[in-house]
């Protein structure tokens, strides 16, 4: 993978870990850190951390918090007149998210962009336009991740502008460095504009990295075999789940659910939201906030009628949305296999059980 003279910008380079914050410039800078009240053994994407954390599997919360904040003012009003429409124009740099989260961001781009039913969400898209995402490739699976089953992988590049790999001691001399490779035009331009911070990366180094990548992919695949590869056949689960919508297995799969929204709120691709007005006397704002299909009130009509009255129906909706409806509407599986829902669930409901349960059904095409 050598530099091509026709393309503008830089393809790759080696940068010291200590220089990463210098890439931020004027941008709002987010990186993994352990400051403040983060529980032991975890880290999260924090703004302008004093020290960037490494040696973690994944950050607590996915990227959606940055681009699609949990509570966002859409506009303010005074009495009956709109006074301000704060569409964000900020520039953002994210460093250190995992490839699964970057891929999730690409999926949210589809959701909030015009391909999804023709409308564009300006609040999300404006932030995205001004952002650069540098993901950090994984070298080993963690017990709850299954990215390869959903069509992703520990080293994939979709959704990131640049991908970073940690270099070991001995590679590129002093350890404490990263290889950063550009994925998009934006990424190449970004490297070019910061080239003073980068040293050259040899072809041999890159080759070593590619070998490590292949080993990581293999390791994840082996660690979490779910009986389906949605990368190879995106509707593999859809074609099995659609005819089994009323199947009694849903009752057993969802029996323990207590109906909280932890899974949806920590999920990188769950995006349902509510719109509400908050006002005091005559001044106020219209806000957008996260909402969850797991909440009982989510679909309740003003008349009192509720199309989904029980937890089984609501939990089924979540899985059907991710593995069937999104495939139909956007050609995406809205799950990146990050495993946060598994660790967050207070009753240890496991999305992998659902996937395995349907994956073992015969394919409709092959059914005799």
């Amino acid at each position: 993978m050598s530099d091509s003279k026709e393309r503008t910008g830089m393809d790759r380079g080696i940068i010291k870990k200590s220089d990463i914050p210098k890439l931020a410039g004027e941008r709002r800078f987010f990186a993994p850190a352990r400051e403040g009240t983060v529980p032991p053994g975890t880290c999260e994407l924090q703004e302008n951390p004093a020290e960037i954390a490494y040696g973690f599997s994944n950050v607590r919360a996915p990227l959606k918090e940055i681009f699609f904040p949990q509570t966002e003012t859409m506009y303010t009003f005074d009495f009956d007149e709109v006074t301000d429409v704060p569409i964000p124009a900020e520039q953002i740099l994210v460093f250190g998210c995992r490839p699964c989260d970057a891929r999730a961001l690409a999926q949210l781009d589809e959701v909030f962009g015009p391909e999804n039913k023709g409308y564009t969400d300006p609040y999300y898209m404006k932030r995205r336009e001004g952002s650069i995402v540098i993901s950090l490739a994984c070298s080993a699976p963690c017990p709850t991740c299954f990215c390869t089953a959903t069509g992703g992988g520990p080293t994939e590049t979709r959704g990131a502008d640049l991908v970073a790999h940690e270099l070991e001691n001995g590679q590129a001399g002093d350890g404490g460095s990263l290889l950063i490779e550009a994925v998009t035009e934006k990424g190449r331009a970004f490297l070019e504009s910061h080239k003073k911070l980068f040293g050259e990366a040899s072809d041999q180094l890159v080759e070593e990295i590619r070998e490590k990548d292949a080993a990581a992919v293999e390791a994840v695949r082996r660690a979490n075999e779910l009986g389906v590869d949605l990368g190879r056949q995106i509707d593999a689960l859809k074609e099995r789940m659609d005819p089994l919508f009323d199947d009694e297995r849903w009752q057993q799969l969802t029996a323990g659910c207590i109906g909280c929204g932890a899974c949806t709120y920590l999920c990188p691709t769950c995006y349902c939201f509510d719109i509400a007005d908050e006002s005091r006397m005559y001044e106020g704002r219209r806000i957008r906030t996260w909402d969850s299909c797991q909440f009982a009130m989510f679909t309740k009509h003003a008349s009192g009628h509720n199309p989904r009255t029980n937890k089984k129906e609501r939990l089924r909706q979540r899985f059907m949305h991710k593995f069937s409806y999104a495939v139909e509407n956007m050609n995406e599986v809205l799950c990146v296999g990050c495993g946060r829902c598994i660790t967050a669930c207070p009753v240890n409901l496991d999305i992998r059980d659902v996937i395995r349960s349907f994956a073992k059904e015969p394919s409709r095409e092959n059914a005799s």
Partner: protein
Amino acid sequence: MSNARTAEIQKIAKDLLEEGKVELFIGFQEGTVPLRSRPAFVQAEAVESLVWDSFCANNLAVYLPKYYENQPGRRKKREKPYPKIGVAAKGCDMRSIVALTKERQVQRDSLLVVGVPCEGMIDTRKVEAAVAAKGGDGGAAAADEILEARETEAGKLEVTTRSFGVLSFDREEVLQDCCLECRFPMPEGADILLSGQARKPGDGGYARIEQFMKKSSEERWDYFSTELSRCIRCNACRQACPTCWCKECFAEQTDLKWIGVGNTPSDAMIFQIIRVFHQAGRCVECDACYRACPMHIDLRLYTKKIVKDVEDIFGYLPAFDAEALPPLATFGDEQCDFFITDPDKAETAEGTGQ
């Protein structure tokens, strides 16, 4: 011990189901991640999946009201007889069942409680913190360090880790604080009791509250607002709590709208304040809310405070007596009523009497 208890609970459940004494048995099965067993809803053919070990921390009483409610939209009283449900219960679970009985959310006589004298449950967070500490400087990624965890006959917890080999802990080192402090590990009033001893009762853990109350109000406010700043309004605390059973939570009302729906700090704080106050006289400190919170908010400090306040002021603690009604649900002659009869009366020592 846990192998013996697993076998015992499987046998009891099997007999109950086969004899038709219950239609469904709610217990625990092996979890899909280390250090977790998870709620199981079994019928006769699935009793072999039941387990009992030190990872059975969930409060199973949270599932019960659903079996006794009228169907949504139907105003007529239940016409079918109530279903017969079997449920495994530790001390805290049993106290929740009693609380729900008092509030008419479960029919005690169609519930068959299999009591487990509780030895305490292991705190996954304590184990994760201990593993993280091995990594030094803020810690390794605890969640994926832990590959496997098992209890030994000798009362130890052995945790197989990726980077640090097998670590061994004494149970007491890694038990949940609510278990160390628990005053009621024996589920009194259960219909069937598993064999074995419960742990010795703890002291209730009020010392921490007393310490905390010595801090200035600025310090206490600072702690509360910092903890609650992490709240994402996921409602896991509310949903995990057996005595949060309201069909429409105050937080969801739109008419009147008490709090907003987002995670604005004041909304998050008021939500928790009101939720804890609604639990006064009802909370059994099972710590289900604390465990459920994905942001690790220190909810148990505040639930313990409300429990202590109710005990101090009313001499009441929700335990096993279904006849002892919660103080906020009763109003007797001996209680003060000056706020009705003489609202201008200044708050004197008499005026604020019980």
